């Protein structure tokens, strides 16, 4: 394989590995030589065992969601989705994502610019700090905002005086969502921009472009697939977060319920068909996410290979 193959280490708890190696199937490399392949029996045993494991632990839960959702028929399914509480949960989930994604996108680009294009002391420590939200339990992510903004928290009394509600209200949900999706874009862009170096940007500046023009016309085209990848992952986690949001939400129906929380409420009320109906929406979101992610990986690989050919 070529030495330029670029991949990223997986992250603490979210995304993994943008891979843009050659698009071809690596298996041919191993399967054609006697020294690097196993006896057919061993090969099919490994394939059989690993695929059974995959089917039982990954595939069956996904299928179960879709089957359970339709168990009571389409009518129940649609009723559950069109219920006013479900619709308000959809709305709140969208609001949280619409705020969290751009905030973390801007942060990710700024952090990657500072870290990848400049040298300064404490850089590695800064990267570790950016990764912190991935290593913190979602429950603790919710707890920290309760400690700051809750009734007994640091700012609690002041907020109460000014009649501002953050915990058990929409702002708390948004904050918790921002926290759990904090590193995704930055973590995707930092290694990508480090690998690309800064010669192209420096050339643009020397030729008279200002900072904004340089970013817009030189950097952005180079990082657009990585950027999109980060946004897809951020969005998926933002819409699906449960633990952190559950702590700060207060579970007020029609007001502070996101889709995952609505699933929990319905499930705990033994409205299984309705719970799975709403869950199926989130499952479809997950499938769309995986589809988009695979597509972006392909495009990125193609763009990367094109670049290789152009420069060599």
């Amino acid at each position, binding site marked *: 394989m070529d030495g330029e193959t670029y991949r990223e280490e997986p992250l603490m708890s979210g*995304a993994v590995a943008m891979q843009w190696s050659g698009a071809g199937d690596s298996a041919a490399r191993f399967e054609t030589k006697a020294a690097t392949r196993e006896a057919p029996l061993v090969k099919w045993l490994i394939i059989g065992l690993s695929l059974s494991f995959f089917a039982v632990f990954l595939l069956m839960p996904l299928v179960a969601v879709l089957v359970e959702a339709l168990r009571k028929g389409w009518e129940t399914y649609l009723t559950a989705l069109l219920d006013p509480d479900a619709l308000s949960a959809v709305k709140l989930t969208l609001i949280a994502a619409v705020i969290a994604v751009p905030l973390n996108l801007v942060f990710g680009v700024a952090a990657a610019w500072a870290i990848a294009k400049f040298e300064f002391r404490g850089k590695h420590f800064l990267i570790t700090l950016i990764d912190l939200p991935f290593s913190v339990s979602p429950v603790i992510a919710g707890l920290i905002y*309760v400690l700051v903004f809750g009734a007994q928290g640091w700012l609690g009394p002041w907020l109460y005086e000014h009649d501002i509600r953050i915990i058990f209200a929409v702002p708390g949900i948004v904050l918790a969502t921002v926290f759990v999706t904090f590193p995704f874009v930055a973590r995707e862009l930092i290694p990508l921009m480090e690998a690309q170096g800064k010669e192209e940007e420096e050339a643009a500046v020397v030729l008279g472009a200002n900072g904004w023009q340089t970013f817009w016309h030189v950097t952005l085209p180079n990082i657009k697939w990585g950027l999109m990848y980060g946004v897809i992952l951020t969005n998926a986690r933002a819409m699906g977060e449960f633990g952190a949001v559950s702590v700060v939400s207060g579970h007020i129906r029609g007001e502070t319920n996101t889709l995952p929380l609505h699933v929990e409420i319905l499930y705990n009320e033994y409205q299984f068909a309705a719970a799975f109906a709403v869950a199926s929406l*989130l499952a479809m979101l997950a499938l769309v996410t995986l589809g988009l992610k695979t597509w972006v990986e392909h495009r990125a690989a193609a763009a990367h290979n094109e670049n290789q050919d152009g420069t060599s």
Partner: protein
Amino acid sequence: MNAPARSFRVLPGFRLTLGYTLAYLSLIVLVPLAAVFLKTFTLTFDQFWAVVTAPRVVASYKLSFGMSLLAAAINAVFGLMLAWALVRYRFPGKKLIDALVDLPFALPTAVAGIALTALYAKNGWIGQLLEPLGIQVAFKPLGVLVALVFIGLPFVVRTVQPILEDLDTELEEAAASLGAVRWQIFRHVILPVLLPALLTGFALAFARAVGEYGSVIFIAGNIPMVSEITPLMIITKLEQYDYTGATAIAVVMLMFSFTLLLVINGLQAWTAKRTGRNR
């Protein structure tokens, strides 16, 4: 965190972007996290110790850490096998399976939780097969294990897979020409190269499992002293408005997470050294 003034910087925006990064990081992450530690200081050490070593809390550590270790070990074995199959063999549906490996990252944890519960309940697809064998999964500690295996699998596959893809075939060919059988080649040539990545995947899966909440609470049954995970203990304390108690347990978990984060950083550096890949 000032940059050394030695070099003239051509590119603009260093102060702006670093300043923004530090401000946003402090506001969203560092200051709120500091609140956890400051809150604990309102307790004396004896009070803190009493909270974090209460029998019900200790039982939750045993369950959370034990099941997380076990789940990470299961994932290390099957994740390696799956990564191996995806890299080395051609079989129908491979691309689709490769894409679906990331499902646990994309599927909201609450959805995974209720789906697993439905599968492993007594009348579920898998539960009814296990019932005659006397094995109960849902609402037992075993249920916690199943959920943690689900969420941990991609960590191992995605750390091991790129290393496997980059392996040179020459070493294996050399070993084969010297008369080594396939198992010896795996054991003495391939495994040493994979080991750091495999351990990293194991540690990542373990770290995620210890903090996991959404996919576990539905299937666990949450019986005190039996199937309560540590994150649930924090929620339970919060529901009783025992903020200091919740915070004390959170501190224990955070200390553990930070230690594990250091271990993982070390493992990744080792992986880079072993394989010549830069991070």
